[in-house]
């Protein structure tokens, strides 16, 4: 601060931030405001809730909303449990743990388009999932299951499983980093003073890891809310609707429909709102860190 005062106001480094601020004003603030305004105005430019009303009166939209929530929560819970267990296991540093870590991380490197193809080739009736099950003798080659005919809840569950395959390593790696920076003596103090392995996990490791866990889960949920590509590649449009899938549908398929543009804008606002709510919950919870004490 003193440095700044001595150098004079115009030499202050704040001026170097101006390009960034301009960039964000142009390419973030302005578009965000325009999207919000667009969603709250009808076709003639008058302020109204018509877009929202119209959207929520559509069954496909309500299903999309429900599916998105189901998917986000379901995948978050499943991925948290698996990722935490995996991170605890890998943290033990057994002989080949580096190799196992490497293998576990591979799915994380897959672009969503590649994941879509990977699983599409697996899920159709003559795909590799059924091939594998047949070679194990668990399925009759004459009567393979058509996974892609799943609908509703089963389809969402299938997508959660596929998403977990792709995304689990990225959650796990954040938790693993947290565990590796965890002072082992906290655990050892627990053991010395009478806690068994389970109690140590519950009373000591878990609470101290809370900030890391919340960070990982919030990031995960924000990405999960925006799921669309996997659903479209495997099931196609309109079969298992999700919020961003609806946007893509409006942009790519029914591009010139009457309300396509408005719908796309309005749904983006809804998605953005959900994300912002999650972020503020995160900020509030991580503010608890002050009360909970920092990691020594």
């Amino acid at each position: 601060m003193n440095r700044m005062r001595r150098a004079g106001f115009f030499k202050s480094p704040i001026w170097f931030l101006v390009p960034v601020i301009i960039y964000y004003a142009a390419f973030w603030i302005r578009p965000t405001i325009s999207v919000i305004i667009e969603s709250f105005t009808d076709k003639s430019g008058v302020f109204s809730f018509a877009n929202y009303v119209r959207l929520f009166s559509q069954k496909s939209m309500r299903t999309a909303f429900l599916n998105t929530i189901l998917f986000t929560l379901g995948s978050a819970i499943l991925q948290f449990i698996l990722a935490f267990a995996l991170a605890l296991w890998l943290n033990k540093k057994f002989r080949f743990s580096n190799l196992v870590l490497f293998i576990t991380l591979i799915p994380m490197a897959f672009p969503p388009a590649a994941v879509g193809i990977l699983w599409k080739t697996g899920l159709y009736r003559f795909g590799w999932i059924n091939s594998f099950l047949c070679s194990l003798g668990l399925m009759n080659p004459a009567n393979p299951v058509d996974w892609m005919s799943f609908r509703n809840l089963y389809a969402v569950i299938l997508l959660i499983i596929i998403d977990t395959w792709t995304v689990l390593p990225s959650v796990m790696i954040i938790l693993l980093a947290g565990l590796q920076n965890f002072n082992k003596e906290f655990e050892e103090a627990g053991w010395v003073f009478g806690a068994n392995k389970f109690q140590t996990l519950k009373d000591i490791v878990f609470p101290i890891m809370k900030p890391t866990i919340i960070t990982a889960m919030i990031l995960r949920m924000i990405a999960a809310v925006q799921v669309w590509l996997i659903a479209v590649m495997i099931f196609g449009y309109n079969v298992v609707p999700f919020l961003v899938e609806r946007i893509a549908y409006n942009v790519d398929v029914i591009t010139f429909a009457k309300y396509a543009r408005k719908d796309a804008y309005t749904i983006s606002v809804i998605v953005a709102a959900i994300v912002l709510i999650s972020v503020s919950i995160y900020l509030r919870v991580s503010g608890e860190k002050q009360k909970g004490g920092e990691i020594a």
Partner: protein
Amino acid sequence: MSMRPGKLWSRTVFLLILATIASTVILPILYFLTISFASNYEAYQFPAKIFPTFSYSAQLRYNAEKDSYTLLLKKGSTYEAVKTTQDVSDFSLYCKSQLNVLLSSAAVQELFNKAKNTDHALPIKLKKNFFRNYIVFFILAEGSMRALFNSLKAAGWTILISLILGGVSGYIMARYKFKFSNTFSTSLLVVRMFPAVALSLPLVVYIMKMNLYDTSFALAIVYAVPNIALTAWITSSIFKGISVELEEAAMVFGATRLKTLMTITFPLAFPAIIASSLYAFLAAWNDSITALIMTNNNPTLALLVYRTVGSSTIPNLPAAGAVVLLVPSLIFTFIIKNYINQLWGKVAL
């Protein structure tokens, strides 16, 4: 050596978990890779193979009554007739398009002659042109190479914009505490998490007005929005770790601020710069939705692969495209993973 029963049990469970993880990750990938090398004929086979094949065991049978030749391919323990023809070029075309086997007309004629002189069926081995799918996808199909370059260009611009704007912000945030620095970093946090979808839609309009629609640069503008914030966060973490005194020492010994930045700060912050670039690259390389919104005739590779799935009935060609899409992503993700401990270990976000 006898282990205590408790140890034997835990060793078994350990190996079981290991096997489950390895197979869950590796099996799908193996199948996927094999499909990318599969010919059209192989793609229709069920059950699918887990390892790619390099050649076909086949038979060529001469049918005297019709003066035709039948190609039979080995399937399990029997041979399945797949093509019957009299014409050499017809046969050659079939081999090329359905089997990924390249045989010149002369070679086919030679086979025909041999078959004619053989009593029953002539056993032959047809060698696959192993990378044919990749060649078809990238060289023969239209637009694939261009899409690849579009992806690279978009990624390059994204890295450039993110590093310049983000790196500067990161440095300032690390070194100076000014009145609204907290607001600034919180807002960067919000921006980082903001869904790109909500930005791309309105930005398309401006992009069109600026005559940048359907260009990699336009894509980079959108990709850079969260990446500038991410770069700022990564670099500010690193810069905070580089003691101010190192810079002050340089300046005491005569270097200007600019020289100090270039010779001392920048080299020390190199890992952060690499990590930020890789994240920026992956953001641009992997995205489909923004490309969907903002391009039309100049898609990125990720978007192209997505589109190809819809248009073809069998997955072998799109799989080849997906594998190429996958390779840089794999490489860079593995480089980054070494930095993730640095990034996530200390700071909670």
